[in-house]
């Protein structure tokens, strides 16, 4: 045999060159299911992509893996973008993945919808749980990036409305995988140390992928559990995130959030001054009313001519005395008449009158004798006449037959 053998290394190198030179294999977009997923401590990801009939090894280096906005797991359906090449040492070809997304255009949206209905069912969006935004918060806590328009808008609007407001920013990343963890930490820090009276959670608009940290379940719970009221200002007008639904108040833009959080100090001062005016007016009115009552009172006759009433009473008394006098006289005269009438009557019945007519009264020892029965023969009786008395001895006594 004069055919010269080549080494394994040479063969693999040859195959690698063939494959690397293929334009199609340099840029493949492949869908499949992840299995045997391993995250190496170096940050590189190793896994197999498979479908029902076939499989291929994949590797995603840390430099690319860092951009993932989800954590790949076994069983997950994904699309990967990369190039096919050969790992010469092992003689295997594999996909060197540069980007990966969850399969299906709607998958992120589906996830959002699913989480939204789950949290809604759990009551995280309930109106009754929403905390009231304080009327005059002294310190506005802000969770957003320290650069960019959001914090600038909030400071501009906030200080314009109240030049003395205290705005306290905890800078957090607002996009990219894991951003929600920093946001949650920020919410907890504000709460634990009571560093704010109200919190604005803000970021500008973006794609669903950009806004994804605000759709994370863990952030939803952190917002729900925050004791400090949270105003969310994520996205612009139309992009609603889960955070917007859980927050105590949703502002369409970060500027609007600042308006909701910071009261216009001139308005507040005006409100206070209207109260002062109301106090002054009502007290003035009360005093005027009292004055009026006093004047009305003093204008009455009793105060103007105090003797009038008394004089009137005197007249009344005089009249009464007159009436009393005449009444008494009346009664007296009647009584006098009656007396004289009675006196005549009594006079007619007087025993003296009877004696005058010729009758006598007989007495024994001062006791008037009315019947013969009381007298015994030999008694001394006294007889009274109109002109004198006579003592006589009883000589005889006879009885009337019928007595």
């Amino acid at each position: 045999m004069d055919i010269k053998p080549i080494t394994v290394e040479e063969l693999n190198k040859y195959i690698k060159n063939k494959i690397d030179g293929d334009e199609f294999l340099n840029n493949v977009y492949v869908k499949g299911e992840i299995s045997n997923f391993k995250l190496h401590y170096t940050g590189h990801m190793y896994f197999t992509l498979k479908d029902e009939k076939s499989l291929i090894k994949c590797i995603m280096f840390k430099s690319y893996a860092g951009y993932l906005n989800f954590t790949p797991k076994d069983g997950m359906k994904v699309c990967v973008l990369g190039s096919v090449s050969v790992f010469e040492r092992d003689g295997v070809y594999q996909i060197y993945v540069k980007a990966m997304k969850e399969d299906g255009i709607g998958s992120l949206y589906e996830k959002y919808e699913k989480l939204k209905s789950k949290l809604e069912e759990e009551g995280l969006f309930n109106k009754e749980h929403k905390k009231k935004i304080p009327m005059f918060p002294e310190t506005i806590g802000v969770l957003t990036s320290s650069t960019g328009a959001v914090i600038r808008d909030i400071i501009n609007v906030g200080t314009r409305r109240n030049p003395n407001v205290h705005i306290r920013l905890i800078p957090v990343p607002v996009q990219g995988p894991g951003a929600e963890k920093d946001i949650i930490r920020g919410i907890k820090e504000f709460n634990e140390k009571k560093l704010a009276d109200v919190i604005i959670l803000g970021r500008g608009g973006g794609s669903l992928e950009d806004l994804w940290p605000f759709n994370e379940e863990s952030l939803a719970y952190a917002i729900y559990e925050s004791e400090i009221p949270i105003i969310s200002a994520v996205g612009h007008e139309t992009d609603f995130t889960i955070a917007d639904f859980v927050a105590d108040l949703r502002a369409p833009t970060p500027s609007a959030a600042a308006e909701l959080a910071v009261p216009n100090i001139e308005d507040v001062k005006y409100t206070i001054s209207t109260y002062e005016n109301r106090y002054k007016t009502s007290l003035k009115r009360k005093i005027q009313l009292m004055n009026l009552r006093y004047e009305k009172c003093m204008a009455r006759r009793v105060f103007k001519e105090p003797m009038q009433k008394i004089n009137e009473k005197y007249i009344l008394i005089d009249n009464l005395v007159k009436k009393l006098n005449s009444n008494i006289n009346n009664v007296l005269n009647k009584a006098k008449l009656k007396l004289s009438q009675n006196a005549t009557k009594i006079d007619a019945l007087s025993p003296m009158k009877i004696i005058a007519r010729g009758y006598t009264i007989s007495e024994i020892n001062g006791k008037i004798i009315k019947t013969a029965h009381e007298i015994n023969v030999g008694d001394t009786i006294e007889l009274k006449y109109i002109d004198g008395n006579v003592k006589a001895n009883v000589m005889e006594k006879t009885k009337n037959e019928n007595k």
Partner: protein
Amino acid sequence: MKEEINFEDAMEKLEKIADELESEDLSLDESVKKFEDGMELSKKCNEILQNAEKKITVLINGEEKDFSVDNE
């Protein structure tokens, strides 16, 4: 500088006093008392507004510093 009264409660009380003063059935003595209470409270509210201090701060790793958007 930290006031004992809560601004929100104070505003509510201001409103209540105004309503009471405007009702007819307070005696003059009571009215004067309410008036004084109300004016005192509004003074306190104004003080809270005045005494607040403008501060824009940034908190990083528990350390607070002044923050300015201009020095990005």
